[in-house]
């Protein structure tokens, strides 16, 4: 540590070069920070303590098939089940049929299954008393500048009302505030009453059916047994079910969407390979330029080993400095990116894990890059170096 100012001075001996290199390193780690956030947002979806308590039951045949609502009462009697809620896909769109807004028609207790999605007591009370009431995700409210109390028209891609019209009118009675990254999705959706939906939809279109059940279990450790017991209820019927934990269900969707891990991994591989060369080149230049100075240091009595350590420290410091700037920049930019994507991407801010991984990478790259120059500096022969040979 006592050599710190010496290392610092050596680093900024050529200001332009160091700053240019720092910007390159910062750009690489900015990308790392952002891509890691993407990876984590895919990884984390559905993984939380609350999520582990929830089971999702859907038709075994495929996700577009429906189940009879009465199955819910049977599920409630399965040992280990705390509560059962159900929901149906409504297929909402706002203004333009292609402008889809995720809308679910849900049972009255649906929101109870998601304690990490906050809804004010007032909003819940009004929701319970308003037939055409809907709860809207906070991000969605922002996006369309809707206010609580507004009446909004929604088109359904699938369901006509009794009069044949597919234009539905709803009243916004409250907001959904997801408080955890794993349920961030609830900031982007609309919940309506399933009962109203089933009553108002044209005869023959729904017939009291639901898309999926959300079950909370009493004990997380029994989740698998409960899931099996739920599926056993409808075995060999015309509506066989498939029950998964929320985490497993979400992970399966994410995996089908894209192999994000592979994409992020290959990009970062290319970036860090390039970065190694670039920083390596800078360090080589720096040591080559300072040959005589290093020789002077050795003449003054610095041991070979401390010269080695100083050059290594310099290269690590360079990478860490640039890397920290890059990740910090990512932390600043990510909220903007999430907002700018219009809700498509919902990125978490740079978390402790990303920082740790990033700093680990910085140290590793710094050491790899510094090895050859440091070795050279250590092996430097004082007489040759001072003579400029």
């Amino acid at each position, binding site marked *: 540590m006592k050599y710190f100012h010496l290392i610092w001075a050596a680093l900024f001996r050529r200001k332009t*070069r160091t700053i*240019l290199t720092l910007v390159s390193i910062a750009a690489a780690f900015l*990308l790392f920070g952002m891509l890691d956030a993407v990876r984590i947002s895919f990884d984390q979806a559905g993984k939380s303590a609350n999520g582990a308590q929830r089971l999702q039951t859907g038709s075994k045949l*495929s996700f577009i098939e429906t189940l009879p609502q009465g199955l819910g009462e049977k599920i409630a009697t399965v040992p280990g089940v705390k509560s059962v809620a159900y929901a149906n896909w409504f297929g909402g769109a706002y203004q333009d*049929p292609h402008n889809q807004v995720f809308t679910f028609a849900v049972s009255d207790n649906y929101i109870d299954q998601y304690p990490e999605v906050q809804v004010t007591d007032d909003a819940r009370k009004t929701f319970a008393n308003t037939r055409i009431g809907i709860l809207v995700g906070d991000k969605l409210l922002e996006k369309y500048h809707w206010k609580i109390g507004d009446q909004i028209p929604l088109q359904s891609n*699938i369901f006509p009302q009794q009069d044949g019209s597919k234009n539905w009118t709803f009243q916004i009675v409250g907001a959904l505030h997801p408080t955890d990254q794993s349920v961030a999705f609830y900031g982007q959706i609309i919940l309506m009453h399933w009962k109203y939906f089933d009553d108002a939809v044209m005869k023959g279109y729904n017939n009291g059916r639901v898309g999926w059940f959300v079950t909370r279990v009493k004990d997380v450790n029994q989740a698998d047994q409960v899931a099996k017991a739920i599926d056993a209820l409808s075995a060999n019927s015309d509506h066989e079910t498939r029950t998964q934990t929320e985490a497993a269900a979400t992970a399966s969707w994410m995996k*089908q969407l*894209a192999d994000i891990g592979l994409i992020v991994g290959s990009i970062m591989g290319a970036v860090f390979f390039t970065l190694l060369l*670039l920083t390596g080149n800078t360090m080589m230049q720096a040591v080559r330029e300072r040959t005589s100075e290093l020789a002077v240091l050795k003449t003054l009595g610095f041991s070979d080993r401390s010269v080695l350590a100083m050059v290594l420290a310099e290269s690590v410091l360079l990478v860490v400095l640039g890397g920290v700037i890059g990740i910090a920049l990512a932390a600043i930019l990510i909220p903007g990116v999430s907002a700018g994507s219009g809700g498509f991407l919902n990125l978490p801010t740079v978390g402790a894990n990303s920082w740790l991984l990033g700093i680990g990478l910085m140290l590793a790259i710094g050491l790899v890059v510094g090895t050859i120059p440091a070795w050279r500096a250590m092996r430097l022969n004082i007489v040759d170096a001072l003579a400029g040979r």
Partner: protein
Amino acid sequence: MTFLFNSVVVLLLIVVLAAWVQLPWYGVLALAVVFAAWMALSRRGRQAASVTGVGISTLRQRSGSSSVVVIGIAGVVGVLVALLAMGEGYSETLRKTGSEDTAIVLRGGSASEVSSVLSNDNIEVIEQAAGVAHDKQGKPIASGEIVVAANLPVKGGAAGEEGSVQVRGVGEQALVLRPNLKIVAGRMFRPGMRELVVGQGAQRQFAGLQPGHEVKLGTQTWSVVGVFASGDAYDSEIWADANVIADTYRRGSSRTSVFVKLADAKALDTFKAALASDPRLQVDVDTTINYFSKQSEGMSKVMRIMGITVGSIMAIGAIFGALNTMFAAVAARAREIATLRAIGFRGVPVVVAVMLETMMLALLGGIVGGLLAWLIFNGWTASTLATGTTGQLAFTFKVTPALLWEGLKWALAIGFVGGLFPALRAARLPVTTALREL
């Protein structure tokens, strides 16, 4: 003063880059020809050529630092081209699905096939409408189809891991409507039987889809009897008889969509008008090629934005890497450049020489990066849950010449920016100071 000069340079740079992005290939060619003519014919140009020659002849001594420019830019171009090739492959798969002379009819306001429902009565009306082509027996060439989804075990996945595949129940005329779709193994399903033919993309992705095998859709057992290939989005589907599918999925006599062959290229308007004027129907009509192209729009835009964002951030890193290298190169040759200027070479040839050298390195990097992207990723198979379908859509990365060209343009732009400032410094350094250095 220096600050003012630098800001003017930066402003000009932005203008030049904006123009560069817009420039088509023949514009670039014209620019190259004009530049070559200038170098060959004018006095200044010949000076520039000779200074460049000196610079390039010393490149070998600086191979380490020069390779930083090449590899840095190769990295940017490689990643950019690979990401754009993903988007290109995806939209290409959907874009070549369908044709100009077939139309798809969906219930009005449906965003995609799966959210549409057409009753049997509707379908009969649609088939009889004006503009529909008829076969030799005088039957309209139309196929009422039903699109649903099925969960199947994923190939190479963990036990119990299932993916969603789009299942299409088709009528007798389905193959007539899609002439590019061929059965490549086994045979077509027999009407009324629980038999499946699977697309080769679906076969690659899901386990147990070989002819002769049996798979379970829900509670029922189906036998796979054939494999088909079409080279487009249908490759990711599995097909069966529409009536049997409707039965399995409890859809009665309703269907999700109707495909019809149009009598001729102009018949779309006739067909559209006929359906629009029929009070019994409330439907949307489009050519199949339009319908599938539209499905790709949202996703390919997202993929493109992702590619350009990642590319831009990497490009910033590469620009600074190039700046570093070229500043070092100019510093190393400061005395040589000052000597040239002392004996009468003007600023322009020096600027041109340094920039030309950087841009050549950049071009080399661009070629290497594009080549790598092409070698590694062209033909790579990936899949995603496509919008508007209920199953995974398999597609292959397409590294097209247009994408390679775009990559080269990026490379040259990076080289341009990375070379400009060192070149200006070389030309503006006072001769006396430079000669005294070292």
